[in-house]
């Protein structure tokens, strides 16, 4: 049952990555690899969070580093820069529910200014959710970018044609 959960998580993440990626007009040849990266990344985060009880920010960082390294490895075959593969693959990990709750609690706070106890509670929720959303997004972006700087020589020449007959 656990295996099915993980697999389903990966499949839905892959569909989400393809769709969100399609908005930014990626080359058709990159789609299978984007889907693979998104599935592996999201399933990894799902495992870390549900079976190893890692918090969402750390788990996102781990998943983002894996996606970044994966895009370095897979980019050469389709002559795509790393960002083309990893930006769509990261999108399914955006903490949507936390972002939504941030907006919701802000509105409720503004609506309950005259009710002393309630207002503080909503403000607390606002900061909690905002902190989680912002730190997860920073972790995602920074984690996937890390490999560019570690392996810069390889990362900068992914779109170079392989030298033939030389």
């Amino acid at each position, binding site marked *: 049952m656990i295996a099915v959960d993980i697999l389903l*998580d990966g*499949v*839905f*993440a892959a*569909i*989400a*990555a*393809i*769709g*969100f*990626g*399609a*908005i*930014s*007009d*990626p*080359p*058709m040849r*990159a789609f299978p690899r984007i889907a693979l990266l998104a599935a592996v990344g*999201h399933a990894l985060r799902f495992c870390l969070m549900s079976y190893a009880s890692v918090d969402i920010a750390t788990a996102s960082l781990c998943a983002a580093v894996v996606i970044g390294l994966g895009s370095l490895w897979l980019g050469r075959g*389709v*002559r*795509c*820069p790393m*960002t*083309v593969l990893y*930006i*769509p693959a*990261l*999108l*399914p990990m*955006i903490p*949507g*529910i936390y*972002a*939504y*709750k941030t*907006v*919701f609690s*802000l*509105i*409720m706070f503004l*609506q309950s200014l005259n009710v002393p106890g309630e207002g503080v509670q909503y403000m607390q929720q606002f900061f909690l959710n905002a902190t989680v959303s912002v730190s997860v*997004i*920073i972790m*995602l*972006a*920074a984690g*996937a*970018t890390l490999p*560019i*700087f570690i392996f810069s020589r390889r990362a*900068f*020449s992914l*779109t*170079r*044609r392989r*030298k033939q007959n030389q």
Partner: protein
Amino acid sequence: MKSKQELTEILDFITEYATYLLGSGVHTSRVIRNSQRIGVSQGVDIQLSSFQKSIIITAHDEHSREAITRVVAIPALPISFERNSDLSALSWDALDERLPLDEIRRRYEKLIAKPRIDPIFVLITVGLANASFCRLFGGDWTAMGIVFTSTLVGFSARQQMQARGVNHFLVFIISAFLASLCASSALFFDCTAETALATSVLFLVPGVPLINGVIDIVDGHILIGVSRLINAMLLIICIAIGLSATLLMIKDSLL
């Protein structure tokens, strides 16, 4: 040795190339590397610094000591990863195959004339994507169906407004409002309505400027990195405004 005429031609092409890349959502250091690579293939030293809306670019010929500088506006183009990949590959081809400028320009024109992905295909895949996103957040099948439909409404509104050149902040506010309004119909059904509502606007999240901003800042292009992040923040605030309009209407049934 390059004559002034040749140097101007090279600079004009590289300027067009660099602004096209920046307009299509490529991070700054890649644009600089690609432009300098084409410069090297033509025997010219290129230096450029980029801002949110314009670039300053100089071509310098070390032998004749001739230098030309231009300030050029960055066009507002839709984000395109395909152009990013193709044009980056072109810069390597220019260097490795020692292409003449005419040939580079010919290939460049061919690459930017390639058709983009069919909008209907994008619409359907975005709908499916947002529905599976809803599933990842623990939504049930009813919620997924509702998110699919409301994404279709929100995203087609966005496509239509963008095609007509409406201000992009307005586009984001209206699309977020329409999508969340449609998703609020989930309150009438026995399903995970809050998840549906939360997911319905997520197709608008400006992922590319957010991540490009972080890359630029880490790369040392802090000024443009911060500009990109502020731009992305403004768009996220617009999404929040659109969503708030719906929430204000239905908040009593959510509590």
